[in-house]
């Protein structure tokens, strides 16, 4: 894929040499052992667990077939949580795709290496701040009499009198609002790398043709960074489908299940209600969902590259 420029010398692969096999396998063994025990085994045992009624660890459990899945898809709480997940993911994908692109364009248009670096660095630093700290502070901003209420009051808007995260009707939008203005993140870097890679002659030609500002962004830049756009859509979809950080810290899926998402449903089933079987079923379901999106992503990324190659 065109995004990393890791120095790969393809021809060196032909000159690989032979060594006693046991030494070579010895080098790979630790990594492989870790992967088998702590990646493959949990993943596969998750499939099995989802078909058992495992409650707490160490207690005898029975094979129950698909009844956990039946329980999930007949639970109105879970079905609603799917809807919330979809809404959050779609909003997150839109924001996560558009905002970083606009900001990366702004940085790219500065034409000054030093400032470009300063801004990229500035937005990157935000990524170091523990997510927990950011979300907790947002909890204060969104609370009763919090900063958002004060701003609404100042602007003469009707502010929440109960706290944005406590009101059933505003809790989900409030979670979407966390992180405003949603600039910091890996998206800026991905887009910026894509913009820098655009052939300067194309940009010169666009400038000569009188294409500037938003016009150029939409008609020249976006088609050329389409690969990056797709990548970020997929990355934010995957993040959106499995994320439940705000629920974990602020709402616990409430009020009245109005912010419940499958990821948090899984967490609660496993570690609050002690139903490992049901929780594993949620995990398997989310895996299937995310895996199919990843496969779609690979297909589309490849086709977009073929397309670029033909031109």
């Amino acid at each position: 894929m065109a995004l990393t420029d890791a120095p790969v010398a393809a021809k060196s692969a032909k000159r690989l040499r032979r060594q006693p096999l046991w030494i070579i396998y010895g080098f790979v063994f630790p990594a492989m052992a870790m992967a088998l025990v702590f990646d493959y085994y949990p993943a596969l045992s998750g499939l099995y667990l989802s078909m058992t009624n495992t409650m707490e660890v160490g207690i005898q459990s029975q094979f129950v077939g698909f009844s956990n899945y039946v329980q999930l898809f007949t639970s109105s709480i879970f079905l609603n949580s799917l809807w919330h997940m979809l809404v959050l993911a779609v909003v997150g994908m839109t924001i996560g795709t558009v905002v970083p692109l606009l900001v990366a364009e702004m940085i790219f248009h500065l034409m000054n290496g030093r400032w470009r670096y300063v801004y990229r660095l500035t937005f990157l630093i935000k990524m170091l701040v523990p997510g927990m700290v950011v979300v907790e502070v947002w909890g204060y901003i969104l609370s009763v009499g919090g900063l958002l209420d004060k701003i609404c009051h100042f602007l003469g808007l009707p502010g929440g009198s109960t706290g944005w995260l406590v009101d059933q009707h505003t809790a989900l939008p409030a979670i979407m609002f966390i992180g405003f203005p949603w600039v910091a993140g890996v998206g800026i870097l991905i887009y910026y790398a894509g913009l820098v890679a655009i052939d300067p002659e194309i940009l010169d030609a666009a400038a000569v043709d009188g294409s500037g500002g938003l016009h150029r962004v939409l008609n020249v830049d976006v088609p050329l960074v389409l690969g990056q756009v797709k990548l970020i859509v997929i990355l934010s979809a995957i993040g959106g489908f499995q994320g439940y950080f705000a629920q974990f810290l602020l709402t616990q899926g409430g009020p009245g299940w109005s912010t419940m998402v499958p990821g948090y449903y899984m967490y609660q089933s496993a570690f609050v209600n002690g139903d490992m079987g049901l929780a594993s079923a949620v995990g398997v379901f989310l895996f299937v969902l995310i895996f199919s999106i990843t496969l779609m992503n690979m297909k589309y990324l490849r086709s977009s590259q073929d397309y670029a190659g033909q031109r």
Partner: protein
Amino acid sequence: MIATREPGLTQAAPLPTPARVIRQRQSGMRWGLHSLLWILAILEFYPMVLAVFMSLKTNTQYYLHPFSLSFPLDFGNYSQAFSVIWHYMLNSVAVVTLSLAGTLLVSTLAGFVIGRYQFPGRNLLYYMLIGLMMVPGVLTMVPMFVLISHFHMVDSWWGLVFPYIAGGEIFSIFLLRQFMMGIPQELFDAAQVDGASIWQEFWHIALPSVLPILGVIAVNHVVGWWNDLIWPSIVLTSQKWMTLMPGLYSFTGQNQANVGPLMAGYVIGSIPLVILFMFTSRLFMEGMNSGAFKL
């Protein structure tokens, strides 16, 4: 022809080069862009600023003016918070160090032979490892907990360290293999002429050559592990072993009415990474760029 659409231009005037056209357009909007970017940066960082403001308030000051700076500044919150969380921070340092040592060790060894040697099953092993990038954390979390319960690793650092290594090695091997393949063959040929063993090749040629990428991998893992909350809060139950984020989480539970010390705790917990970043910002940025593949 160039610039025929520009009204004021005569034939005699020098044709504007594309670069100059761009520059002229830019100069007008440059200040607009700068101010917009600054506003965005301020909004983006405002929650952190808010945390610092709130960390410097007594309870009375908080109830009067919660969201601005109020004087006199109260630094007592910091000593109060530090006296609780220094212990969690040390635990985090230990867990991150162990996980990092393990991850770098196993992935450098594997990346070396997969990148430089031909052996039966090489591709199979490589794709078995890399394929795990497609397995999201939600699938493995619950069964992983069941597994480490069987291993009696609940409420111990090992319940964090082993899953961290197993999760961290995947992408590290992906990067390391690429960089191992990029080392010039001449270095290895020369070493072989001198009769170097595979260990000596690894130690004296491969390892020094991939040090920069090891730095990238290390910085990015450290950030992720230091800030990890949900998994450690599941695994760790006793204060003795608690790492920073679950520690801050329980500290939050105890200080709902004491916003000052709470925010001071958040600020202290965020500082080590900022310091780390000051020395390694380029490594972090590179890692973030290549991390775009991690699904």
